[in-house]
Every structure is written in C-alpha cells, then in structure tokens.
C-alpha cells in the first residue's frame, strides 16, 4: 500500500516524466519509494509506541 494519502490519490506521477526534477516534489532526497517507507515507519511506530490508534490516525 501507499502510506501517504496525498501520493496515493495522484493518478499520474509527474516527477517520473522526462525532464522532471524529482526534488521539485520530494525534499530531503526522498524518492517515491523511500518516502513511502518513511510514511510506513511513521505509522507503525506511532501505533506501536503511542498505543493510541486515534492519535496515530490523526497524525497521518
């Protein structure tokens, strides 16, 4: 699954197009893949250590 709602709802991936600059879309050197992993980790750790499903959902 795609963990970022914003990314998940995008039909096209304009940063994949020829001539596109991925850093216009992703900061900190993230790529589509590493951004997704990062979001997944945010979600997992907030649920596991926050122990509060609602708070974790609100943070996402």
């Amino acid at each position: 699954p795609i963990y970022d709602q914003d990314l998940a709802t995008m039909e096209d991936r304009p940063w994949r197009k020829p001539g596109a600059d991925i850093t216009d879309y992703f900061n900190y050197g993230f790529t589509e893949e590493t951004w997704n992993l990062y979001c997944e980790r945010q979600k997992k750790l907030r649920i596991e250590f926050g122990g509060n499903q609602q708070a974790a959902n609100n943070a996402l």
Partner: protein
Amino acid sequence: PFRHIDPETKMKDCPWYDRGFCRHGPYCKHRHRRRAVCPNYLAGFCPQGRECQHAHPSFGLPSFENIAISHAKPS
C-alpha cells in the same frame, strides 16, 4: 550594500514540502526549500532540537493553524 529582495523570499515555505512531499511540485505557490534532514531525527531522536543545523521535519499534516505557527517560528 543593498541586497536585492527576490519576491520569492517573501513567499512562505511550503508546509507539505517541509514535511517531505508536495504534489504540486514546480507549480506550487509556496516556496520549496531544499534541505538536508537530520540523520538522528530520522532515527527517532536528536538532542539538539531546534538548535540543530539539519531539518527535523514534522510529520503532522499541515493545517491552517500549524502553517501559521511554522510561519511564526524562526527557521
């Protein structure tokens, strides 16, 4: 000497881009400021807090409220 003030510097930094990703890319009305992320913060904790020279991106989704707060914070 006088510094030329680029109109861009008056723009707010994009809170989505500061979070890590902005769907508007080059068409965003906010400024996309490229930054280096703090490896410690990415691991989970950095003792430097706000003093750190690297970015500590907030993961909370931007709301009107925290856009105003982040705008007020010195960066």
